[in-house]
Protein backbone atom coordinates (compact mmCIF):
# COMPACT_ATOMS: atom_id res chain seq x y z
CA UNK A 1 0.00 0.00 0.00
CA UNK A 2 1.39 3.35 -1.02
CA UNK A 3 2.62 5.65 1.68
CA UNK A 4 1.00 8.65 -0.01
CA UNK A 5 -2.40 7.31 1.04
CA UNK A 6 -3.41 9.84 3.73
CA UNK A 7 -5.04 7.16 5.87
CA UNK A 8 -1.93 5.01 5.80
CA UNK A 9 0.21 8.02 6.68
CA UNK A 10 -2.07 8.84 9.60
CA UNK A 11 -2.09 5.26 10.82
CA UNK A 12 1.69 5.02 10.64
CA UNK A 13 1.96 8.32 12.51
CA UNK A 14 -0.43 6.99 15.13
CA UNK A 15 1.60 3.81 15.44
CA UNK A 16 4.71 5.94 15.91
CA UNK A 17 3.10 7.71 18.86
CA UNK A 18 1.17 10.62 17.39
CA UNK A 19 -2.16 10.29 19.22
CA UNK A 20 -3.74 13.14 17.29
CA UNK A 21 -3.56 10.98 14.16
CA UNK A 22 -6.25 8.72 15.61
CA UNK A 23 -8.55 11.72 15.98
CA UNK A 24 -7.93 12.59 12.34
CA UNK A 25 -8.68 9.05 11.26
CA UNK A 26 -11.84 9.10 13.34
CA UNK A 27 -13.01 12.33 11.75
CA UNK A 28 -12.39 10.91 8.30
CA UNK A 29 -14.05 7.55 8.83
CA UNK A 30 -16.50 7.70 11.73
CA UNK A 31 -19.36 8.87 9.51
CA UNK A 32 -19.02 6.19 6.82
CA UNK A 33 -18.44 3.45 9.35
CA UNK A 34 -21.38 4.57 11.47
CA UNK A 35 -23.82 4.51 8.56
CA UNK A 36 -22.52 1.07 7.58
CA UNK A 37 -22.96 -0.19 11.15
CA UNK A 38 -26.41 1.36 11.37
CA UNK A 39 -27.48 -0.63 8.34
CA UNK A 40 -26.19 -3.76 10.01
CA UNK A 41 -27.59 -3.47 13.52
CA UNK A 42 -30.50 -1.13 12.72
CA UNK A 43 -30.09 0.80 15.98
CA UNK A 44 -28.38 4.14 16.20
CA UNK A 45 -27.19 3.77 19.80
CA UNK A 46 -25.79 0.30 19.23
CA UNK A 47 -24.09 1.45 16.05
CA UNK A 48 -22.46 4.33 17.96
CA UNK A 49 -21.19 1.94 20.61
CA UNK A 50 -19.78 -0.32 17.93
CA UNK A 51 -18.17 2.66 16.25
CA UNK A 52 -16.36 3.57 19.46
CA UNK A 53 -15.37 -0.02 20.06
CA UNK A 54 -13.99 -0.24 16.52
CA UNK A 55 -11.63 2.66 17.14
CA UNK A 56 -10.65 1.26 20.52
CA UNK A 57 -9.67 -1.91 18.66
CA UNK A 58 -7.69 0.18 16.18
CA UNK A 59 -5.86 1.69 19.13
CA UNK A 60 -5.19 -1.70 20.67
CA UNK A 61 -3.97 -3.17 17.37
CA UNK A 62 -1.91 -0.21 16.21
CA UNK A 63 1.41 -1.98 16.78
CA UNK A 64 0.27 -4.86 14.61
CA UNK A 65 -0.98 -2.63 11.79
CA UNK A 66 0.72 -3.20 8.45
CA UNK A 67 -0.01 -0.90 5.53
CA UNK A 68 -0.87 -3.76 3.20
CA UNK A 69 -4.43 -2.66 2.55
CA UNK A 70 -6.46 0.50 2.74
CA UNK A 71 -7.08 1.63 6.29
CA UNK A 72 -10.80 1.74 5.63
CA UNK A 73 -10.81 -1.92 4.58
CA UNK A 74 -9.19 -2.85 7.87
CA UNK A 75 -11.51 -0.58 9.83
CA UNK A 76 -14.69 -1.84 8.18
CA UNK A 77 -13.62 -5.40 8.79
CA UNK A 78 -13.17 -4.67 12.48
CA UNK A 79 -16.52 -2.89 12.61
CA UNK A 80 -18.37 -5.62 10.74
CA UNK A 81 -16.99 -8.36 12.97
CA UNK A 82 -18.06 -6.43 16.05
CA UNK A 83 -21.52 -5.92 14.55
CA UNK A 84 -21.82 -9.61 13.74
CA UNK A 85 -20.91 -10.44 17.32
CA UNK A 86 -23.55 -7.99 18.51
CA UNK A 87 -26.20 -9.49 16.25
CA UNK A 88 -25.25 -12.97 17.37
CA UNK A 89 -25.50 -11.91 21.00
CA UNK A 90 -28.92 -10.37 20.40
CA UNK A 91 -30.10 -13.54 18.71
CA UNK A 92 -28.92 -15.64 21.66
CA UNK A 93 -30.73 -13.38 24.11
CA UNK A 94 -33.92 -13.48 22.07
CA UNK A 95 -33.91 -16.79 20.18
CA UNK A 96 -37.45 -16.22 18.94
CA UNK A 97 -36.21 -13.30 16.87
CA UNK A 98 -34.83 -14.46 13.57
CA UNK A 99 -32.28 -12.33 11.83
CA UNK A 100 -31.02 -12.30 8.30
CA UNK A 101 -27.94 -14.10 9.56
CA UNK A 102 -30.00 -17.27 9.55
CA UNK A 103 -31.11 -16.90 5.95
CA UNK A 104 -29.23 -18.57 3.17
CA UNK A 105 -28.04 -16.46 0.29
CA UNK A 106 -30.07 -18.44 -2.22
CA UNK A 107 -33.47 -18.63 -0.61
CA UNK A 108 -33.44 -15.15 0.83
CA UNK A 109 -36.17 -13.32 -0.93
CA UNK A 110 -37.26 -10.39 1.20
CA UNK A 111 -40.98 -10.15 1.75
CA UNK A 112 -41.82 -6.59 0.93
CA UNK A 113 -44.56 -4.87 2.86
CA UNK A 114 -45.85 -1.76 1.21
CA UNK A 115 -46.78 1.15 3.43
CA UNK A 116 -50.34 1.07 2.14
CA UNK A 117 -52.27 -1.71 0.45
CA UNK A 118 -55.03 0.62 -0.61
CA UNK A 119 -54.90 1.18 -4.34
CA UNK A 120 -54.92 4.80 -5.29
CA UNK A 121 -53.43 7.12 -7.82
CA UNK A 122 -50.73 7.92 -5.29
CA UNK A 123 -49.67 4.30 -5.16
CA UNK A 124 -47.79 4.64 -8.40
CA UNK A 125 -44.15 4.27 -7.69
CA UNK A 126 -42.49 7.63 -7.74
CA UNK A 127 -38.97 8.53 -6.81
CA UNK A 128 -39.73 8.95 -3.11
CA UNK A 129 -41.56 5.67 -2.95
CA UNK A 130 -38.86 3.88 -4.87
CA UNK A 131 -36.32 5.15 -2.42
CA UNK A 132 -38.38 3.87 0.49
CA UNK A 133 -38.90 0.61 -1.30
CA UNK A 134 -35.21 0.13 -1.93
CA UNK A 135 -34.42 1.04 1.66
CA UNK A 136 -36.92 -1.55 2.82
CA UNK A 137 -35.57 -4.30 0.60
CA UNK A 138 -32.02 -3.33 1.46
CA UNK A 139 -32.78 -3.77 5.15
CA UNK A 140 -34.17 -7.22 4.54
CA UNK A 141 -31.36 -8.52 2.37
CA UNK A 142 -29.07 -11.14 3.87
CA UNK A 143 -26.30 -9.37 5.74
CA UNK A 144 -23.54 -10.43 3.37
CA UNK A 145 -25.42 -9.29 0.28
CA UNK A 146 -26.28 -5.96 1.87
CA UNK A 147 -22.77 -5.36 3.17
CA UNK A 148 -21.18 -6.29 -0.15
CA UNK A 149 -23.47 -3.98 -2.11
CA UNK A 150 -23.03 -1.18 0.40
CA UNK A 151 -19.25 -1.37 0.54
CA UNK A 152 -18.98 -1.44 -3.23
CA UNK A 153 -21.63 1.08 -4.20
CA UNK A 154 -21.50 3.54 -1.30
CA UNK A 155 -17.97 3.24 0.01
CA UNK A 156 -16.41 2.60 -3.40
CA UNK A 157 -14.46 -0.44 -2.31
CA UNK A 158 -13.14 -2.74 -5.02
CA UNK A 159 -14.34 -6.33 -5.05
CA UNK A 160 -11.00 -7.43 -3.63
CA UNK A 161 -11.42 -4.98 -0.73
CA UNK A 162 -14.99 -6.08 -0.12
CA UNK A 163 -13.73 -9.65 -0.07
CA UNK A 164 -11.21 -8.68 2.60
CA UNK A 165 -13.85 -7.04 4.75
CA UNK A 166 -16.24 -9.97 4.37
CA UNK A 167 -13.44 -12.51 4.69
CA UNK A 168 -14.45 -14.28 1.50
CA UNK A 169 -13.35 -14.63 -2.12
CA UNK A 170 -13.70 -12.09 -4.91
CA UNK A 171 -15.86 -14.55 -6.83
CA UNK A 172 -18.21 -14.75 -3.88
CA UNK A 173 -18.39 -10.96 -3.72
CA UNK A 174 -19.38 -10.79 -7.40
CA UNK A 175 -22.18 -13.23 -6.70
CA UNK A 176 -23.35 -11.46 -3.55
CA UNK A 177 -23.54 -8.06 -5.23
CA UNK A 178 -25.34 -9.21 -8.35
CA UNK A 179 -27.87 -11.14 -6.27
CA UNK A 180 -28.50 -8.07 -4.14
CA UNK A 181 -29.10 -5.88 -7.19
CA UNK A 182 -31.27 -8.52 -8.84
CA UNK A 183 -33.39 -8.90 -5.70
CA UNK A 184 -33.96 -5.16 -5.41
CA UNK A 185 -34.68 -4.82 -9.13
CA UNK A 186 -37.20 -7.69 -9.01
CA UNK A 187 -38.97 -6.16 -6.03
CA UNK A 188 -39.21 -2.80 -7.70
CA UNK A 189 -40.59 -4.53 -10.76
CA UNK A 190 -43.18 -6.43 -8.69
CA UNK A 191 -44.25 -3.29 -6.84
CA UNK A 192 -44.55 -1.30 -10.05
CA UNK A 193 -46.63 -4.02 -11.65
CA UNK A 194 -48.89 -4.23 -8.60
CA UNK A 195 -49.40 -0.49 -8.53
CA UNK A 196 -50.19 -0.36 -12.22
CA UNK A 197 -52.67 -3.21 -11.98
CA UNK A 198 -54.34 -1.66 -8.97
CA UNK A 199 -54.74 1.62 -10.79
CA UNK A 200 -56.26 -0.14 -13.81
Amino acid at each position, binding site marked *: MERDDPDVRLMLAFRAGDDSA*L*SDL*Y*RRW*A*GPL*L*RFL*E*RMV*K*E*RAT*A*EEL*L*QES*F*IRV*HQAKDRYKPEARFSTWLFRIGRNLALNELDLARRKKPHLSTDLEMSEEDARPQLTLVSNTPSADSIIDAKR*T*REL*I*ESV*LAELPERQRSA*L*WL*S*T*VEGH*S*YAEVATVLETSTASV*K*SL*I*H*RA*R*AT*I*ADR*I*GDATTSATEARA
Partner: protein
Amino acid sequence: MNERLDYLLSVELDDEIEPAEREELDRLLRDHPEAADRRASFESIDAFVKNIAEQPATGGATGEAQSRLEAGLASIQARIEKASAEPVDELAQRRRRMPSWIPSIGLAAAAAMAVYFVVPTGPKIPTKASDPASSSSSSQPLAGVPSTGGSDFVDNPIALAVVFEVDEDSDTIAFIDSMSPDDFEIIEQLELLEFLAAREGEGRG
Protein backbone atom coordinates in the same frame (compact mmCIF):
# COMPACT_ATOMS: atom_id res chain seq x y z
CA MET B 1 -30.06 -15.88 -19.41
CA ASN B 2 -31.42 -13.60 -16.65
CA GLU B 3 -29.05 -14.84 -13.96
CA ARG B 4 -26.05 -14.52 -16.24
CA LEU B 5 -27.18 -11.14 -17.54
CA ASP B 6 -27.62 -9.84 -13.97
CA TYR B 7 -24.14 -11.02 -13.11
CA LEU B 8 -22.57 -9.37 -16.17
CA LEU B 9 -24.44 -6.11 -15.68
CA SER B 10 -23.40 -6.04 -12.05
CA VAL B 11 -19.69 -6.53 -12.67
CA GLU B 12 -19.88 -4.02 -15.50
CA LEU B 13 -21.47 -1.44 -13.22
CA ASP B 14 -18.67 -1.88 -10.68
CA ASP B 15 -16.00 -1.75 -13.38
CA GLU B 16 -14.87 -5.25 -12.46
CA ILE B 17 -15.80 -6.92 -15.74
CA GLU B 18 -13.29 -9.16 -17.52
CA PRO B 19 -12.63 -8.72 -21.27
CA ALA B 20 -14.31 -12.02 -22.13
CA GLU B 21 -17.30 -11.06 -19.97
CA ARG B 22 -17.47 -7.71 -21.75
CA GLU B 23 -17.77 -9.46 -25.10
CA GLU B 24 -20.49 -11.73 -23.73
CA LEU B 25 -22.43 -8.79 -22.30
CA ASP B 26 -22.23 -6.83 -25.54
CA ARG B 27 -23.59 -9.84 -27.37
CA LEU B 28 -26.48 -10.22 -24.91
CA LEU B 29 -27.36 -6.55 -25.11
CA ARG B 30 -27.36 -6.75 -28.90
CA ASP B 31 -29.50 -9.89 -29.03
CA HIS B 32 -31.92 -8.98 -26.22
CA PRO B 33 -33.09 -5.38 -26.28
CA GLU B 34 -34.89 -5.81 -22.93
CA ALA B 35 -31.49 -6.28 -21.32
CA ALA B 36 -30.98 -2.53 -21.62
CA ASP B 37 -33.94 -1.99 -19.28
CA ARG B 38 -32.35 -4.26 -16.73
CA ARG B 39 -29.12 -2.30 -16.98
CA ALA B 40 -31.03 0.96 -16.44
CA SER B 41 -32.74 -0.59 -13.44
CA PHE B 42 -29.41 -1.58 -11.89
CA GLU B 43 -28.00 1.91 -12.45
CA SER B 44 -31.08 3.41 -10.85
CA ILE B 45 -30.75 1.12 -7.82
CA ASP B 46 -27.15 2.22 -7.29
CA ALA B 47 -28.15 5.87 -7.45
CA PHE B 48 -30.88 5.30 -4.87
CA VAL B 49 -28.59 3.35 -2.57
CA LYS B 50 -26.09 6.19 -2.67
CA ASN B 51 -28.87 8.61 -1.90
CA ILE B 52 -30.01 6.49 1.03
CA ALA B 53 -26.46 6.51 2.35
CA GLU B 54 -26.61 10.26 2.64
CA GLN B 55 -29.33 9.95 5.25
CA PRO B 56 -28.85 8.52 8.75
CA ALA B 57 -30.55 5.12 8.91
CA THR B 58 -32.26 5.78 12.21
CA GLY B 59 -32.87 9.50 12.24
CA GLY B 60 -30.95 12.47 13.53
CA ALA B 61 -30.21 15.79 11.91
CA THR B 62 -26.80 16.37 10.36
CA GLY B 63 -25.73 18.84 13.05
CA GLU B 64 -26.86 16.58 15.83
CA ALA B 65 -25.18 13.59 14.21
CA GLN B 66 -21.94 15.55 13.95
CA SER B 67 -22.00 16.56 17.59
CA ARG B 68 -22.67 12.96 18.59
CA LEU B 69 -19.68 11.85 16.55
CA GLU B 70 -17.51 14.41 18.34
CA ALA B 71 -18.84 13.17 21.67
CA GLY B 72 -17.95 9.67 20.54
CA LEU B 73 -14.38 10.74 19.89
CA ALA B 74 -14.13 12.27 23.35
CA SER B 75 -15.45 9.03 24.81
CA ILE B 76 -12.87 6.99 22.89
CA GLN B 77 -10.04 9.22 24.11
CA ALA B 78 -11.26 8.93 27.69
CA ARG B 79 -11.42 5.15 27.43
CA ILE B 80 -7.92 4.99 25.97
CA GLU B 81 -6.53 7.19 28.74
CA LYS B 82 -8.27 5.11 31.36
CA ALA B 83 -6.96 1.91 29.81
CA SER B 84 -3.43 3.35 29.76
CA ALA B 85 -3.66 4.07 33.47
CA GLU B 86 -5.20 0.73 34.36
CA PRO B 87 -2.17 -1.56 34.39
CA VAL B 88 -0.55 0.43 37.22
CA ASP B 89 -3.76 0.58 39.24
CA GLU B 90 -4.41 -3.07 38.64
CA LEU B 91 -0.96 -3.98 39.88
CA ALA B 92 -1.55 -1.90 42.97
CA GLN B 93 -4.88 -3.62 43.55
CA ARG B 94 -3.30 -7.02 43.16
CA ARG B 95 -0.68 -6.07 45.70
CA ARG B 96 -3.38 -4.97 48.09
CA ARG B 97 -5.25 -8.25 47.60
CA MET B 98 -2.14 -10.37 48.07
CA PRO B 99 -1.76 -11.90 51.59
CA SER B 100 1.08 -10.25 53.41
CA TRP B 101 2.96 -13.50 53.97
CA ILE B 102 3.35 -14.31 50.24
CA PRO B 103 6.26 -11.94 49.59
CA SER B 104 8.02 -13.34 52.65
CA ILE B 105 8.07 -16.76 50.99
CA GLY B 106 10.09 -15.38 48.14
CA LEU B 107 12.47 -13.65 50.52
CA ALA B 108 12.84 -16.75 52.63
CA ALA B 109 13.49 -18.89 49.57
CA ALA B 110 16.11 -16.45 48.34
CA ALA B 111 17.73 -16.41 51.75
CA ALA B 112 17.76 -20.18 51.82
CA MET B 113 19.44 -20.39 48.46
CA ALA B 114 21.96 -17.73 49.42
CA VAL B 115 22.87 -19.47 52.64
CA TYR B 116 23.05 -22.82 50.93
CA PHE B 117 25.37 -21.70 48.18
CA VAL B 118 27.45 -19.11 50.02
CA VAL B 119 27.94 -20.29 53.55
CA PRO B 120 30.86 -22.72 53.98
CA THR B 121 29.96 -26.19 55.10
CA GLY B 122 31.80 -25.77 58.39
CA PRO B 123 33.37 -28.45 60.47
CA LYS B 124 32.63 -31.87 59.15
CA ILE B 125 30.68 -34.14 61.36
CA PRO B 126 30.31 -37.83 60.68
CA THR B 127 27.04 -38.49 58.89
CA LYS B 128 24.87 -41.42 58.07
CA ALA B 129 26.65 -41.61 54.71
CA SER B 130 29.81 -42.60 56.49
CA ASP B 131 27.93 -45.04 58.57
CA PRO B 132 28.92 -48.55 57.45
CA ALA B 133 25.33 -49.55 57.75
CA SER B 134 24.39 -47.20 54.96
CA SER B 135 27.53 -47.19 52.85
CA SER B 136 25.67 -48.45 49.81
CA SER B 137 23.25 -45.58 49.88
CA SER B 138 22.91 -42.94 47.19
CA SER B 139 25.15 -40.60 49.15
CA GLN B 140 28.09 -42.04 47.26
CA PRO B 141 29.41 -39.51 44.75
CA LEU B 142 28.45 -40.11 41.17
CA ALA B 143 31.13 -41.42 38.85
CA GLY B 144 33.07 -38.52 37.42
CA VAL B 145 31.51 -36.03 39.79
CA PRO B 146 34.00 -34.63 42.26
CA SER B 147 32.93 -34.59 45.83
CA THR B 148 32.01 -31.23 47.30
CA GLY B 149 31.92 -32.55 50.77
CA GLY B 150 28.18 -32.56 50.46
CA SER B 151 27.53 -35.72 52.37
CA ASP B 152 28.72 -33.92 55.46
CA PHE B 153 26.77 -30.80 54.69
CA VAL B 154 23.49 -32.13 56.03
CA ASP B 155 24.81 -32.01 59.55
CA ASN B 156 25.72 -28.39 59.26
CA PRO B 157 23.49 -26.53 61.75
CA ILE B 158 23.34 -23.49 59.45
CA ALA B 159 21.96 -25.54 56.61
CA LEU B 160 19.37 -27.09 58.86
CA ALA B 161 18.25 -23.70 60.00
CA VAL B 162 17.16 -22.54 56.54
CA VAL B 163 14.83 -25.44 55.83
CA PHE B 164 11.31 -24.23 56.45
CA GLU B 165 7.68 -24.79 55.66
CA VAL B 166 4.77 -22.39 55.25
CA ASP B 167 1.75 -22.76 57.47
CA GLU B 168 -1.05 -21.36 55.29
CA ASP B 169 -3.58 -21.30 58.11
CA SER B 170 -1.58 -18.99 60.29
CA ASP B 171 0.28 -17.21 57.48
CA THR B 172 3.55 -18.00 59.20
CA ILE B 173 6.76 -19.65 58.17
CA ALA B 174 7.88 -22.45 60.45
CA PHE B 175 11.41 -23.74 60.41
CA ILE B 176 11.89 -27.45 60.47
CA ASP B 177 14.27 -28.66 63.12
CA SER B 178 14.40 -32.25 62.09
CA MET B 179 15.10 -33.92 58.76
CA SER B 180 14.00 -37.20 57.30
CA PRO B 181 16.09 -39.49 55.06
CA ASP B 182 14.21 -37.97 52.09
CA ASP B 183 15.47 -34.56 53.11
CA PHE B 184 19.03 -35.83 52.84
CA GLU B 185 18.33 -37.11 49.34
CA ILE B 186 17.01 -33.71 48.28
CA ILE B 187 20.03 -31.92 49.62
CA GLU B 188 22.36 -34.25 47.82
CA GLN B 189 20.50 -33.55 44.60
CA LEU B 190 20.91 -29.86 45.24
CA GLU B 191 24.64 -30.41 45.58
CA LEU B 192 24.68 -32.07 42.18
CA LEU B 193 22.79 -29.14 40.68
CA GLU B 194 25.30 -26.79 42.25
CA PHE B 195 28.15 -28.72 40.69
CA LEU B 196 26.50 -28.74 37.26
CA ALA B 197 25.85 -25.00 37.48
CA ALA B 198 29.47 -24.38 38.42
CA ARG B 199 30.69 -26.49 35.52
CA GLU B 200 28.39 -24.66 33.12
CA GLY B 201 29.79 -21.38 34.43
CA GLU B 202 33.31 -22.56 33.79
CA GLY B 203 32.35 -23.60 30.29
CA ARG B 204 31.04 -20.12 29.57
CA GLY B 205 34.14 -18.56 31.04
